[in-house]
């Protein structure tokens, strides 16, 4: 399934943007209600957002409120809407769910071309719009180092609960964190030993196996959340917080 992404910053220093939704299970029934555009400029839109959000509030404590769009095939478009207003929630409105015409994108730097296969120059690394054939994120490392990096990152995330790392690493980690939590949900000795072989600190494994059934018993998958944030100063690497849901 598609996980579309939107960047949005309210002022030039406010970057916290989107939810990489891990939880297709929780596609809300209020999907049609949320087809209202995400514009928050007008009070009526805020009110409608308040109404539909309050009806979803029962779902909030246990689930990340997350909806997938009805149009499933949508190319990932980075849409930036800079606003200079003081209130944190006002944004210029844009028209609903129609795909954004790149010709009228607002304030968007670095549009190279407008065909379907355009490339986005993003902070030095070239990213194409498609992901054909890319199975494993390589993280610029040989396989042994890559495995060690991911083991270390999952250990730290399970230990601290929220860590800040680069976006590529955070999105590569998700799979392994979910695997560890699934093993803990299973709870058998074999799974415990497998987890001990992956996680560097054994206290963390034991704590994980003790606490996961209570915490994630009802949740099916999607145990992490990624929040994008400001790029790193030294090398402008895009950073993200990854946290356990």
């Amino acid at each position: 399934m598609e996980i579309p992404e939107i960047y949005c910053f309210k002022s030039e220093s406010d970057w916290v943007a989107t939810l990489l939704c891990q939880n297709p299970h929780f596609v809300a029934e209020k999907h049609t209600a949320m087809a209202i555009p995400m514009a928050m400029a007008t009070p009526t839109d805020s009110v409608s957002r308040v109404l539909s959000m309050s009806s979803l509030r029962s779902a909030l404590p246990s689930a990340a409120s997350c909806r997938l769009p009805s149009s499933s095939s949508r190319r990932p478009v980075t849409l930036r809407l800079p606003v200079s207003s003081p209130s944190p929630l006002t944004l210029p409105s844009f028209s609903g769910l129609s795909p954004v015409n790149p010709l009228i994108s607002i304030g968007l730097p670095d549009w190279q071309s407008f065909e379907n296969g355009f490339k986005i120059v993003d902070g030095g690394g070239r990213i194409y719009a498609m992901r054909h054939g890319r199975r494993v994120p390589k993280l610029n490392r040989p396989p042994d180092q890559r495995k060690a990096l991911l083991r270390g990152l999952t250990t730290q995330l399970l230990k601290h609960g929220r860590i800040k790392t680069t976006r590529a690493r955070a999105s590569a980690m998700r799979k392994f964190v979910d695997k560890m939590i699934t093993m803990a949900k299973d709870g058998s000795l074999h799974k415990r030993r497998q987890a001990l072989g992956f996680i560097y600190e054994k206290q963390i494994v034991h704590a994980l196996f003790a606490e996961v059934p209570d915490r994630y018993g009802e949740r099916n998958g999607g145990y992490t959340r990624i929040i994008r944030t400001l790029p790193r100063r030294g090398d402008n690497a895009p950073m993200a917080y990854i946290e356990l849901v």
Partner: protein
Amino acid sequence: MAASVDPLVVGRVIGDVLDMFIPTANMSVYFGPKHITNGCEIKPSTAVNPPKVNISGHSDELYTLVMTDPDAPSPSEPNMREWIHWIVVDIPGGTNPSRGKEILAYMEPRPPVGIHRYILVLFRQNSPVGLMVQQPPSRANFSTRMFAGHLDLGLPVATVYFNAQKEPASRRR
């Protein structure tokens, strides 16, 4: 499309601590020279002293400011959610918390493990609170929702949050 682009929802501030609200007041928070935007990273050493908070509004309106940490002691196990850092009531609009009544003295952020969110919530008061509220018995296990309900404050009018983590003991070379 993502569920919401509001940073308070993305950072789960609305959900863990607050309910969905429409901001009706402006609040600008400064720790020293640094202006706080949602989700920015602040070092605990810059947050030792209470921040400068400028609240919009008329001077005949009274506001309440609360600063909490929902990730105490650790974001993976928030047993002591929320840890309350600062409560100031009866702040006249258009001024700052030094003109209000400080119910609970400011405590600096001291995250032991992980990256904690520190949330500053502003409520509009319907009437002067004065002696109706005393200090909470302990800073742990505070509930902003219950506090607002107890004082009949309703929904917040402004919120901002920042992240902080423990600084390494020795400076990295």
